[in-house]
Every structure is written in structure tokens, then in C-alpha cells.
């Protein structure tokens, strides 16, 4: 059974960097069959895909257009986890953040983390 356990602060100040972690059990962050994604959800934006990383001979990183320049994903093979760093956060980055496993062959998210509410506020 694959489980994703998220961790990170619930409150971040504007202009600071948001860091979240997603610990993977039951699979490997460097598996060839899946990609590891971050998705967020807010009442104003609904579900919003932020980006993903996957390993196919080398690491690949793909980011949503709205996130390019601010978002970086870090796969950690030693601890089998995925981290997210979002710089220069704004109040509109307030959302529930999820990590999820994306299965490439048939294009779906089959496992989700529990979600983490992040509030951007002074």
C-alpha cells in the first residue's frame, strides 16, 4: 500500500518561502512508472496543479505556467520523499496543498497525501 505523508508549516508570512515535504512509503520517488505531483486547492481557484517530477534516466521537472520562477520541486532519494519550495508567497497562495502520485501509463492520480492547509498572512 502506497502512502503519502505530508508535513510543513501551516502559516507563512508574505514574501517568505513556503516549504512542504511529502514522505513516500510503499513506492520509490525514483520509480519509472509514476510522477510525483503537487496540487493545491482554494475556494477561489479550485484544484490547481502546480508541478511534477519524475525519473526516466534522469530527473524531469514540469511546472504550471503560473508557478514558473517561484516553484521548485526536490526529489530526495535518500529519504524517499518529495519537497516543494514556493518563493515570494502572497496571500493568494493560501490553500490546501496536496502531494499525489500520477500514474503515467493511463494518466491519473491514484494516491493522495492527506493535505496541508497553508495560510499566508502577516
Amino acid at each position, binding site marked *: 500500500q502506497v502512502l503519502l505523508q505530508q508535513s510543513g508549516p501551516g502559516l507563512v508570512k508574505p514574501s517568505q518561502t513556503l516549504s512542504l515535504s511529502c514522505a513516500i512509503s510503499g513506492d520509490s520517488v525514483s520509480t519509472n512508472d509514476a510522477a510525483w505531483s503537487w496540487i493545491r486547492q482554494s475556494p477561489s481557484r*479550485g*484544484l490547481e496543479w502546480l508541478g511534477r517530477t519524475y525519473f526516466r534516466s534522469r530527473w524531469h521537472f514540469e511546472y504550471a505556467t503560473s508557478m514558473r520562477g517561484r516553484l521548485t520541486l526536490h526529489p530526495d532519494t535518500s529519504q524517499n520523499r518529495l519537497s516543494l519550495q514556493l518563493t515570494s508567497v502572497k496571500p493568494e497562495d493560501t490553500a490546501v496543498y496536496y502531494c499525489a502520485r500520477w500514474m503515467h501509463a493511463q*494518466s*491519473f492520480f491514484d494516491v493522495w497525501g492527506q493535505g496541508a492547509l497553508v495560510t499566508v498572512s502577516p
Partner: protein
Amino acid sequence: QSVLSQPPSASGTPGQRVTISCSGTSFNIGKNFVSWYQQLPGKAPRLLIYADVQWPSGVPDRFSGSKSGTSASLAINGLQSEDEADYYCAAWDDNFAQLAFGGGTKLTVL
């Protein structure tokens, strides 16, 4: 505004059949697999349908998916009170090179 369009709400009575539509373009639904997710209040989304029409294990066959051209649909047969939730469609978008979600449909069981 979401790349994939869903009606914001739908409703039905227990036992009824309800369908939820998801409209896209030739860059997303017209070219790539559609998946559907159910989200209960305070919970993470749960996979309902993948590859347009497939069920993951554990999902009742009351749920079914279909696709035609640039539109997809989720059907729920024999509606039950526990089906009251938000439903989202998703597909990879080749134009934007990113994953697109629908805006979500809130299903109410009357």
C-alpha cells in the same frame, strides 16, 4: 477560470441516475485520458474513473465514465446519500503542457 468546464452543481434523488459533464478542447480531452475524482468535505480527492472509462478497484460500478470528442461525462446510477460530494474531471493539456482540472461539480442528493 478552469481549462475544463463542469457545471457548478447537480442534484438527484436516491435511486436516480445523474450525469456530470466535462468539456475541454482537442489539446486535452480530445487527445488525452480523462480521470474523475470524488471529494468529500475535508478529505483529499479520491480516484473514481481513469483512462476515460476504467474503474479502480474498490469503486462501485454504479460510477461510469464516457468520452466523445472533446467532452467527457461521469454517470452515477442508483444515486445514494453518500454520493453527495464534489466531483472533478482532469486531463493533461498538451497546449499548456500541464495538468488541467475542471472547476468541480457539487452533487446534492435531495
